[in-house]
């Protein structure tokens, strides 16, 4: 199973995502922002970082990269896509996921070991979790406040599309403690915390992140 990881100028966690994929038993394929070709991968990770410096709005410029011209229709057609942190921001800017991410309410960057609750275990990236399960995942962002209008938030809740919720104090002002969401079909998932930093014991706060990557491999095998 080949999982592509896109590198944009300013991507930081692309190598970490590739490592996580390898540790989960997949084959990691590096995809280049300027190359409008998905090279036949079975799933894609949009990694964390500061694409184009995130100077305009996080993910705003990356959304227009040539590789996205191929990725957006593929995701709409069911290709599993995981957006982590900056990747989540790119997915929102591309309208593959609703809402937006704004500056943290306390206006500072935050790096912390964050407890989350898995709210939906039926997406392509969460099948190896149980709904209601608590996990510990590294969180690090400056613009991680999830916002959307009330109607969108109600729809997300109603359709079970909130994938992860923050437990304990809300770290960034996200509406309704939302840490991650999924699209209707469950193939596109975005979240602010970083599962790729939680895949090896001794590095990062837990190994809870590995299940994201084993989940997608299992879902691909089952498909």
């Amino acid at each position, binding site marked *: 199973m080949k999982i592509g990881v896109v590198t944009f100028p300013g991507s930081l966690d692309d190598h970490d995502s590739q490592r996580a994929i390898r540790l989960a038993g997949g084959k990691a394929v590096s995809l280049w922002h300027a190359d409008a070709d998905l090279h036949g991968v079975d799933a894609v990770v949009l990694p964390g970082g500061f694409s184009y410096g995130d100077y305009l*709005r996080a993910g*705003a410029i990356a959304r227009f990269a040539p590789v996205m011209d191929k990725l957006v229709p593929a995701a709409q057609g069911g290709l599993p896509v995981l957006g982590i942190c900056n990747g989540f921001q790119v997915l*929102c800017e591309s309208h593959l996921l609703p809402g937006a991410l704004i500056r*943290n*309410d306390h*206006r500072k960057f935050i790096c912390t070991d964050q407890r989350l609750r898995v709210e939906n275990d039926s997406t392509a990236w969460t099948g190896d979790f149980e709904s209601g399960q608590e996990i510990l995942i590294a969180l690090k962002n400056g613009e991680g406040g999830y916002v959307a209008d009330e109607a969108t938030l109600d729809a997300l809740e109603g359709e079970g599309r909130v994938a992860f919720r923050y437990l304990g104090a809300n770290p960034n002002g996200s509406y309704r403690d939302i840490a991650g969401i999924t699209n209707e079909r469950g193939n596109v998932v975005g979240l602010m915390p970083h599962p790729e930093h939680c895949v090896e014991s001794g590095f990062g706060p837990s190994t809870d992140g590995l299940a994201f990557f084993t989940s997608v491999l299992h879902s691909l095998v089952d498909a």
Partner: protein
Amino acid sequence: MGHVVIDVMLKPEILDPQGQAVAGALPRLGFGDFTDVRQGKRFVLAVDGPVTDTVLAQAREAADTLLSNPVIEDVVSVHALESDA
């Protein structure tokens, strides 16, 4: 050489942490008259030559597609910089 100014503000219903921080600081510095603050972005785009209607139309399109995110922001104005005139 001409310039187009594009002003983008967060939608009124979206939380504005930076504006709030300013609003909180003003009274502490003795500026007690201001009841609310919102912080937005101002872009100044330069063109060779004058700001024609075509240039303005391009700027408006750039404002809507790249410079603002309609989910959270409004483009409140797109206009030629007066001091150029």
